[in-house]
């Protein structure tokens, strides 16, 4: 192991990790918004829109992110839509993550049992009150594990950004391997960088999962 090499180049990884995280977080936030919107459409069975959402979910869940990105980055400029690599990354992550977030929210909304609605109704609550005080608090709590799993999944997926020439962690590692042939060191730093980013989220996820287990009612 060549430690001076590691000392010299770890700032490159730091910068790349910053880029990975910036695009990752932006994409995840957009994906959560898309997820909230789409799950609301599905939950309230909005006509027409729910068909579109269903098609979107199938398209997004059954195609790889790399193919989506190649289409956005190399395909769309041919019809005059020129997007920056970073923008492509965020759009791609939103397109992919949106459907996963939708599923997470939808299934936890549906997991709220009918008896909860009936009880709320018999207490004289209005529809909005039921949603605000009974359904959403339970649904949000039960959706936490799935959402955390999706966040980890999406952050992992950012590794394919190197395919569209974004200087993320993978790209830096590949670059260093190509330039100096210090493969072991470059890969070690790569693994360390992903562990530092993802391990805490995974641990927080496990803790949250244990906590929200108490939130399930009636089962």
């Amino acid at each position: 192991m060549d430690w001076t090499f590691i000392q010299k180049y770890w700032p490159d990884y730091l910068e790349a990790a910053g880029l990975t995280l910036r695009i990752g977080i932006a994409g995840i936030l957009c994906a959560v918004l898309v997820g909230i919107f789409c799950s609301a459409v599905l939950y309230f069975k909005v006509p027409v829109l729910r068909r579109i959402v269903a098609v979107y979910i199938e398209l997004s869940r059954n195609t790889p992110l790399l193919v989506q990105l190649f289409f956005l980055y190399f395909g769309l400029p041919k019809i005059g839509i020129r997007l920056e690599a970073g923008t492509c990354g965020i759009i791609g992550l939103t397109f992919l993550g949106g459907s996963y977030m939708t599923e997470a929210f939808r299934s936890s909304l549906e997991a709220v049992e009918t008896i909860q609605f009936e009880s709320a109704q018999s207490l004289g609550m209005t529809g909005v009150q039921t949603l605000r005080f009974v359904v959403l608090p339970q649904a949000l709590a039960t959706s936490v594990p799935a959402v955390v799993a999706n966040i980890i999944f999406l952050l992992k997926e950012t590794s394919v950004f190197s395919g569209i020439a974004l200087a993320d962690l993978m790209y830096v590692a590949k670059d260093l391997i190509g330039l100096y042939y210090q493969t072991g060191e470059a890969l070690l730093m790569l693994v360390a960088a992903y562990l530092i980013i993802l391990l805490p989220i995974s641990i927080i996820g496990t803790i949250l999962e244990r906590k929200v287990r108490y939130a399930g009612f009636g089962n």
Partner: protein
Amino acid sequence: MQDLGISILFKGTNFLRLLGGLGITLKISLISAALSVPLGIAFGMFMTIKNPVTRAISRIYLDFIRIMPQLVLLFIVFFGATRMFGWNLSNEFSAIFVFAMWGTAEMGDLVRSALISIPKHQYESAEALGMTKLQTYFQIIIPQTLRRLIPNTINLVTRMIKTTSLVVLIGIVEVMKVGQQIIDANRFEYPTAALWIYGVIFFLYFFTCWPISIVAKKLEAKWKN
């Protein structure tokens, strides 16, 4: 000639070449899936052993494989193994090796959760009915486990197919690479080729994975207790 861009597909054997590329993708993912299922079942049973040492080993393996992006694992095996041990692994072998390792971890976790989800009273009720151990397993436990396991395993196959798209980044000539070649070869005649080729690849993946997902969903709905 933007409106004629799609005709690139029908020029020469372009479309067949794309399908051939998809075949390589499918071959890699199906071999990996075929290896992952038996290995994953073994790993899943290994994970249910109540022994702190085996628990720790399986936990570390599972968590490491799950936390690392598959592309990183591919790079470790493809570039790292060559450099560190002098093994000259072909890119196809590296891909299958990595996806089988990853699939084993994922499948193992599915098997483990299916095994521990069978409540203890199922065993006890079978015993109370006078069934032997063998009968209990074959008539009570395994059928219930399979119901939970099969839809998830099918989903794992679609994930495997989608993940295999990464192998283009370690230089395997699969559907994306063939697409790039077609685009590059026709750069001047068909300037808009990239749009059509990547669009078609998008739908090739979609029409491969979508039917499989539907089967998984149908089975899941059918077997829901």
